[in-house]
């Protein structure tokens, strides 16, 4: 392998080809639809970053009401209380369920915030130099895609509690307006992450490296034991 330090490789784009991101089949660069799976082909989606920012903005906008309005309203014989995401977690800490409070805080506060920051960083760094290597940014992107879905857990908890705790006069739990804006925020942020074309992360290597490494033709992927 040439240039393992910088990890330059012959890319489909440099070879005058375009790879399908769904089924990995390779086509001549002019082609617009994959003949194998029917997905649309785009060597580098020029609108990728604008779509990322558009979904990102809507996601962030919905995140504010999600934290300001109550997620749940709990009515017992004596009192009615409404709690926001953070308020609910604080209640749990007072009741001694610190573990669950941590799960809620991580899934509903830490992950969404970290996700906004990571997507913004990835989108910005696609256009300029950063200290972070392409490999680490690829890992970051995969982490964001994988973890982002788990933020929906708070919406599901609200759904389960509201369906289950309907005990006539003794107690009842009902969803609050924040559940809708929180769910929308998670969905829009997922769309934002999906709109990002991760090949943009790697392009700068080739662009910087071009004169140094002559293309040596396509190699073979590494074979490894799946159970190692």
């Amino acid at each position, binding site marked *: *392998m040439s240039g393992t330090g910088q*990890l330059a490789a012959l*890319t*489909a*784009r440099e070879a*005058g*080809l375009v*790879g*399908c*991101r*769904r*089924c*990995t*089949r*390779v086509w001549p660069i002019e082609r617009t639809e994959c*003949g*194998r*799976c*029917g997905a649309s082909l785009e060597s580098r989606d020029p609108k990728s970053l604008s779509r990322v920012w558009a979904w990102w903005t809507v996601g962030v906008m919905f995140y504010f009401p999600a934290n300001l309005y109550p997620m749940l309203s709990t009515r017992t014989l004596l009192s009615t209380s409404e709690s926001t995401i953070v308020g609910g977690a604080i209640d749990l800490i007072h009741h001694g*369920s610190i*573990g*669950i409070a941590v799960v*809620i805080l991580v899934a509903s506060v830490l992950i969404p915030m970290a996700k906004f920051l990571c997507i913004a960083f990835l989108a910005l760094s696609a256009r300029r130099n950063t200290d972070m290597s*392409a*490999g680490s940014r*690829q890992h970051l992107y995969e982490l964001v895609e994988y973890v982002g*879905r788990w933020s*929906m*857990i*708070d*919406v*599901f*908890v609200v*759904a*389960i*509690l509201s*369906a*289950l705790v*309907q*005990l006539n006069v*003794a*107690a009842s739990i009902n*969803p609050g*307006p924040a*559940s*809708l804006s929180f*769910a929308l925020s998670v969905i829009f942020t997922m769309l934002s992450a999906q709109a990002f074309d*991760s*090949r943009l992360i*790697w392009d700068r290597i080739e662009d910087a490296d071009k004169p140094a490494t002559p293309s040596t033709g*396509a*190699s*073979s*992927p*590494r*074979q*490894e*034991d*799946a*159970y190692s």
Partner: protein
Amino acid sequence: MADTFDDLENLIACPHCDALYHVVSPKVGERAVCHRCHAVLIAPKRRAGMSIIMLALSVIVLVFGSIWFPFLTIHTSGFSNSATLLDAAFAFTDGPLLLLSLPVLALIVVIPLARVMLLIYVLWPVVLDRKPYQKAREAFLLSEKLRPWSMAEIFALGCAVALVKVADLALIGFGPAFYMFCTLVVIIVVQDNYMCRWSIWASLDPERDV
């Protein structure tokens, strides 16, 4: 340059970083990994098609089971209530919150169910060494697009969190649907592990002679 790549069928481009490779079919149990971004490109499994179909059929049974039976039950100070999966999805009844019911139902029931049905449709002829159905490519593409939106496992963890939240308020019992749903989550994870997307796409390739 392009003239050295006449045979495009034997090339593969990493979907994450665009690195170009010659296809080398790994042995069963091995996998082909991208050199620079370490994405798994090809990972064939023994008798994967049949295993996926069998697991998909059990998912269908379990989904209907977990819709039908009560999911969780609650008892406190003389009152009791039980909730099914559909009750949980339709818990959002308050004005604009109603908008949330359908997406929640889709994320936890409809999309997981639709994905396994699409997979059976796609893989059934392939397993029998027949020509794929006409809409097989569209079906598999749709199933792949739906993948991030299938959130059964997240819902299962949500149940655990909900249980702890009300544990000091009332006595909670698990209904049969709860166990069915947990099994379903495990099966979906195992099934995903069996799926080698490259192998499935290759078997659906219209240029492949049948």
